[in-house]
C-alpha cells in the first residue's frame, strides 16, 4: 500500500468505517510510515475538536418568530378550507398553485394575484405607489383630525369627559393622568359614559360600522374638592361612608397635615361597582367645592379577546399533552411529557390571573377622591395662569394631533418596510 491510498482511507478508519479487509493493509502501512501516522493523529485532533464544539443557544425571540409564521400559515389554511368548504381535502396544499375552477376559489386567487403582482414589482415601480399611498394617508389623517376636533365621534376607543368648574388654572394642570391611560388612545367629546359602558360598543372602521357584542370597558373617575378649614376628618368619614353605601371598598387612603398636626388633605382610591360610579361621583362631589371632576372609559376588548384566545390555545395544548401522557410507555417519556405539561400549566395560570384581574377591573370601576382645606394650598390668581393655560391647551392639541397621526405613520412605515422586503425578496429570487 502506498501513501496516497493509505491517506485516502484515514478518515474512514478513524470513524471505524473500514472493513476488516481494508483495515489490515492500512494498519501495516501505518506501522512503517511516520507521515501517515502523523496525518492520522492530526485528523483525530481535528475531529475531536469539532465534536467538542458546544451547542449555541437559541437566539431570543426566534421561537416566537417561528410560531408566528406557522400560525399565520395555519390560519391561511383554515380560511382557504372554510372558503372552499365544498372541495376540502387536498385543496390545502395546492391552493397556492392558483386554481380558478370555482367562483369561491377565484376570490382567493384574486388576492393571491395581487400579492404576487406586488412581490414581482421592481423598486422603481414601488416608489410612485408608495408616494400615492403616502398622500392618501395624509389626506385621510388631516380630514380625520378636522372631523374629530369638531366633536365628531369617529375612531375613538377611549372616550373621555371632563368638567372643569373650578379655577381654570388648576383644572388644566398637566398632571391629569387618568385620561392618558388608553395606549395613547384618542380623546374626544363623547356622550356621557353611563350610557355606553358594559353595553354593546360600536367600533367604526373605515366606512363599515361593526357592532361588537359585549365589549369590555374599564371605567375610572376622579373627583377633587375643597372643604372649609378643619373639615378634612369629617369629609374623609363621609367619603368612606359614600363608598360603603355604594357597595364599594377603599383600596388605598391617606391623610396628611401641616406642622401643627392639623389634617389639611385627604386622598383615597376606591373600587365601586361600575353601575354605581356616577352616583358615587355625584355624592362625592357634594362634599365640597368641586375643583376637578373627570371620568374616563378604556376599551380593553381587544386585549381581552386576544388573551382569551391564547388561553384557550394553551388549554387545548395541555389536554393534548395529558392524552399523550396516558399513552406513554416508559418512564423517560412520562417525565418528558410531564415537564411539558407543567410548563404549559404555568402559562395557563398566569393568563387566568390576568383575565381575572381584567374581570375585576371591568366589573369594578376605580374612583379616586381628594379633599383639601380651603386656603391650605393658596393659589392667588396671576397673569401667568392664563399663559400657562394657553400653553397647556396648545400642548394638548399637539398631543391630540400626534395621536391622530401616529397610526398613519405606522401604516407608512409598514408600507416602506413591506416594499423594501418584497424588493429584497425579489432580488434574492432572481439573482
Amino acid at each position, binding site marked *: 500500500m502506498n501513501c496516497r491510498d493509505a491517506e485516502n482511507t484515514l478518515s*474512514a478508519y478513524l470513524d471505524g468505517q473500514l472493513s476488516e479487509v481494508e483495515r489490515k493493509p492500512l494498519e501495516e502501512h501505518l506501522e512503517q510510515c511516520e507521515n501517515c501516522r502523523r496525518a492520522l493523529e492530526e485528523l483525530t485532533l481535528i475531529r475531536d475538536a469539532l465534536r467538542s464544539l458546544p451547542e449555541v443557544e437559541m437566539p431570543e425571540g426566534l421561537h416566537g418568530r417561528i410560531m408566528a409564521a*406557522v400560525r399565520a400559515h395555519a390560519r391561511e389554511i383554515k380560511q382557504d*378550507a372554510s372558503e372552499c368548504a365544498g372541495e376540502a381535502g387536498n385543496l390545502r396544499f395546492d391552493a397556492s398553485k392558483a386554481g380558478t375552477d370555482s367562483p369561491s376559489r377565484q376570490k382567493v386567487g384574486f388576492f393571491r394575484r395581487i400579492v404576487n403582482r406586488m412581490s414581482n414589482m421592481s423598486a422603481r415601480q414601488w416608489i410612485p405607489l408608495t408616494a400615492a399611498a403616502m398622500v392618501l394617508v395624509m389626506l385621510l389623517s388631516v380630514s380625520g383630525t378636522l372631523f374629530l376636533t369638531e366633536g365628531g365621534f369617529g375612531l375613538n376607543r377611549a372616550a373621555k369627559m371632563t368638567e372643569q368648574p373650578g379655577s381654570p388654572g388648576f383644572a388644566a394642570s398637566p398632571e391629569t393622568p387618568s385620561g392618558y391611560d388608553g395606549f395613547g388612545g384618542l380623546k374626544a367629546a363623547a356622550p356621557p359614559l353611563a350610557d355606553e359602558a358594559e353595553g354593546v360598543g360600536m367600533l367604526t372602521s373605515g366606512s363599515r360600522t361593526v357592532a361588537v357584542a359585549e365589549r369590555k370597558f374599564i371605567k375610572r373617575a376622579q373627583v377633587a374638592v375643597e372643604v372649609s378649614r378643619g373639615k378634612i376628618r369629617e369629609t374623609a368619614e363621609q367619603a368612606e361612608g359614600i363608598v360603603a353605601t355604594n357597595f364599594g371598598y377603599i383600596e388605598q387612603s391617606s391623610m396628611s397635615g401641616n406642622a401643627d398636626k392639623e389634617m389639611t388633605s385627604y386622598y383615597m382610591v376606591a373600587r365601586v361597582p361600575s353601575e354605581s360610579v356616577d352616583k358615587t361621583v355625584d355624592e362625592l362631589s357634594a362634599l365640597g367645592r368641586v375643583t376637578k371632576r373627570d371620568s374616563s372609559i378604556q376599551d380593553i376588548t381587544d386585549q381581552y379577546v386576544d388573551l382569551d384566545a391564547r388561553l384557550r390555545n394553551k388549554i387545548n395544548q395541555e389536554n393534548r399533552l395529558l392524552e399523550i401522557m396516558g399513552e406513554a410507555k416508559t418512564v423517560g417519556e412520562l417525565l418528558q*411529557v410531564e415537564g411539558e405539561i407543567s410548563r404549559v400549566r404555568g402559562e395557563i395560570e398566569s393568563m387566568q390571573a390576568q383575565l381575572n384581574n381584567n374581570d375585576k377591573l371591568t366589573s369594578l370601576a376605580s374612583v379616586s377622591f381628594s379633599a383639601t382645606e380651603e386656603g391650605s394650598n393658596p393659589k392667588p390668581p396671576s397673569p401667568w395662569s392664563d399663559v400657562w393655560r394657553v400653553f397647556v391647551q396648545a400642548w394638548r392639541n399637539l398631543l391630540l394631533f400626534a395621536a391622530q397621526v401616529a397610526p398613519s405613520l405606522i401604516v407608512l412605515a409598514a408600507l416602506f418596510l413591506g416594499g423594501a422586503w418584497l424588493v429584497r425578496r425579489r432580488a434574492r429570487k432572481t439573482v
Partner: protein
Amino acid sequence: MALLDEQVLIEKASEGDADAFEILVERYEKGVYNLAYRLIPDRDDAMDITQEVFLKAFQALPKFRGDSRFSTWLHRVCVNACLDFLRRKQRTQTYSLDEPINLKESSVVREVRDDSGSVEDVIETKSLTETVLMALNSVDEAHRTVIVLSDIRGYSYQEIADMLGISIGTVKSRLHRGRMTIRKLLPAEQIASPVVKSDERRDRR
C-alpha cells in the same frame, strides 16, 4: 428519541394544528438552529433559515411518510434550505464555486496572523477548537455540510447519504477531503504539536 407521542403530534400538526406543531418546534428548534448556524455562520441568516425550515416543514408535513426519523427529515429540510441559501448568495458574489480551495495561503491563516502579529500570539489566544472552526468556515459547502453533519451533529455515513441523496462513497470522500482541507488550513505550530500539549491548550480555555 423516537417517542411514541411524536407520531400523534405529527398527525395532528399535518392536519394544520399549530399547537401540536409547537411542541415539535420546541423539541427540535435548537438542533435545527445549530445545524443552520454551523452551515451558515451568521446569526441573522441562521435565524431566517430556521424560521423558513419550520414553516416549510409545517407545510410539507402531510408528505412526511415516516420512513426516516422526524428529526432526520427536519435536518434534511434544513440542509437543503442552507444549500439553497448559499447558492443564491454565491451567485451574487464574483468568485466561482468551482474554484479550487486555496490551501496554504487561506484567508483563515492570514486572518489569524493579521489579528495578532506573531504566530506565538495566535497559539496563545486561539484554542484549537476556535481555529478549527474558523478553518471549517472556509471549507467549501459541499465538504463543510458533510463535516457538520458527521462531526458536529453526529450523523452516521448512511444517514448523511440519505439526507443529501449521495452515495456512502461520496460521503466518505467528502468527509475525508474536508478534514484534510482543515488540516492544511491550520497553523502548523498548532496542529503539529503532540496530542498532550494541545489538550492542555484546550483545558486552559
